[in-house]
């Protein structure tokens, strides 16, 4: 696969995650440069100029988020790396944590310098055992080498990093929700305004960025905003880590330059659909990319995929999004009713219960699909599902309830005949197949 690499630009070996290997490939030069020759505002301006968009799901401009913080307002500020990677189909941040944890640490210290942060956190999901161990090892190495702690590299700047391990709650991937977790309470998402850059962790200005977003910072500081803009498309600069799974010959994590041809990615780089089967649909960016505005169609049919390129603006115009970069490929012959049932079971299980439409709605949708799968569906169940999905839209604090609804809307819009068939005949049109054997 050609194209520039920002993160996957070295050979993975048994020790390539160590500080020694990282420094050998130029690691921590970005931090040294920032501390020695840049003002905090210049760092932020460089990120603004780079056009870097968030890689967690919403693609919000990272620099603009940072500009919400005034480094000189005298308050404590906080930075949190969101490593609570739980979006089904997404496993790209795991790659960074396992294979290049120092990229994240270096980038975080640069970011803390820009944002006048004394204490920062990595919020890592509780199940990620190897990534956690690799990250903790790297943090200790960074402390020992003077890249973290007091008076970093003699610059007078001090910064502590706390690795905070989550405890099994999907909703903590929602940025405001993980604040509660760090504060020692239940992780309920919070209403905005106030934005987190105004009142976040401990009621202080806080920036929460995705692991991949943050990890890109060191490269940008090293190479400059212009070099970053030269990669990707004018509106979606840079690269993205795409984790691809499902019915695909070569699943895994790939770094693509934004604007890359989707058909080429699927059929050449990833080896095409499993066993040479025809493509039925693709979930482009995690089953619920955290897009809070606009209808996100989420599931793209085979025909829609062919002419598209992988960047934020193209997918947006196709009614979907690159979301969390968690791509799931679905082969012809797969039962979409059962797939939707799995998604709704998941949303129901993970709803935090704070907002009524989501707490009740995800349960209702799950139970209606249970009934359809049991062969006891009613013809009006399709409208009922759509009604609940619409009632969820925009009526909850976070996007979980919306996402559950969009999944229903997208699946029914594209594969309505499968739902009608299941209800009419009491069985799946495709033998209930989930696997591609």
């Amino acid at each position, binding site marked *: 696969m050609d194209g520039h690499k920002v993160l996957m630009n070295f050979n993975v070996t048994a020790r390539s995650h160590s500080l020694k290997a990282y420094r050998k490939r130029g690691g921590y030069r970005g931090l040294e440069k920032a501390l020695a020759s840049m003002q905090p505002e210049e760092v932020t301006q460089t990120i603004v100029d780079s056009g870097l968009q968030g890689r967690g799901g919403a693609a919000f401009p990272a620099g603009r988020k940072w500009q919400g913080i005034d480094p000189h307002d005298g308050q*404590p500020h906080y930075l949190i790396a969101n490593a609570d*990677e*739980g*979006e*089904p*189909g*997404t*496993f790209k941040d*795991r790659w960074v944590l396992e294979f290049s944890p120092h990229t994240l640490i270096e980038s975080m210290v640069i970011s803390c310098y820009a944002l006048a942060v*004394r*204490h920062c956190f990595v919020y890592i*999901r*509780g*199940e*990620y*055992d*190897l990534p956690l161990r690799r990250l903790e090892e790297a943090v200790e190495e960074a402390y020992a080498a003077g890249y973290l702690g007091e008076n970093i590299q003699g610059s007078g700047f001090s910064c*502590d*990093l*706390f690795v*905070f*391990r*989550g*405890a*099994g*709650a*999907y909703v903590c991937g929602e940025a405001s929700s993980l604040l509660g*977790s*760090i*504060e*020692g*309470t*239940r*992780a309920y998402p919070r209403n905005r305004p106030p934005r987190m850059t105004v009142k976040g962790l*401990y009621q202080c200005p806080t920036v929460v960025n995705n692991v991949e977003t943050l990890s890109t910072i060191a490269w940008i500081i090293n190479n400059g905003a212009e070099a970053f803009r030269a990669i990707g498309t004018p509106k979606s600069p840079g690269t993205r880590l795409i*984790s*691809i*799974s*499902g*019915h695909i010959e070569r*699943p*895994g*994590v790939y770094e693509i330059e934004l604007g890359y041809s989707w058909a080429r990615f699927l059929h050449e780089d990833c080896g095409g659909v499993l066993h040479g089967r025809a493509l039925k649909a693709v*979930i482009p960016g995690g*089953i619920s990319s955290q897009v809070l505005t606009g209808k996100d169609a989420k599931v793209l049919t085979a025909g829609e995929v062919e002419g598209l390129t992988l960047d934020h603006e193209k997918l947006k115009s196709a009614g979907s999004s690159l979301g969390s970069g*968690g791509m*799931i490929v*679905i082969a012809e012959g*797969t039962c979409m009713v059962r*797939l939707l049932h*799995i*998604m709704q*079971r*998941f949303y129901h*299980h*993970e709803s*935090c219960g704070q907002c009524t439409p989501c707490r009740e709605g995800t349960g209702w949708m799950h139970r209606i699909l249970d009934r359809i799968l049991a062969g006891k569906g009613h013809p009006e169940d399709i409208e009922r599902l759509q009604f609940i999905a619409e009632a969820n839209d925009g009526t909850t604090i976070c996007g979980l309830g919306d996402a559950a609804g969009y999944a229903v809307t997208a699946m029914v819009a594209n594969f309505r005949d499968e739902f009608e068939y299941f209800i009419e005949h009491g069985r799946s049109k495709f033998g209930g197949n*989930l*696997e*591609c054997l």
Partner: protein
Amino acid sequence: MKHLIPEFERLKTRLPPGHDATLMVPCLHRIQEDRGYIADSDIDDVADYLGVPRIQVEEVLSFYGMLRRAPIGRWHLQICRNVSCSMRGAERLIDHLIERLGVQPGQTTPDGRFTLSTVECLGCCGTAPVLMVNTTYHEKLDIAQVDALIEGLD
């Protein structure tokens, strides 16, 4: 939990002062690692140590899926049932484990060896299906590999 307090105190050195409740989840994780679950006495101790009401500890415990109030089997088998794993054979593995162990998800074998659980996405979609044994991921499994894995656990 009192013997763990020196460890918790060390954690505080990297935290902003005055926000001890931040140690809630880290303390509960560590206690669970030590005892296998969170006992009633631990709840009192954590509440005392962090200076929070007991109910706050209980609220946290009942919110997060990984924290438990009762002991489980020696080997915790957690199998992902989400989209990508289901598309690569997780359902067959789950059925096989139910039959082989003679327990349903959420139950422990009578000899106390295994607890079986189904979980949501573990971030192993590219190497699906995944089975997590205690804290270790075993990826890209088929039924024969699961059998071999289980036979190797005492």
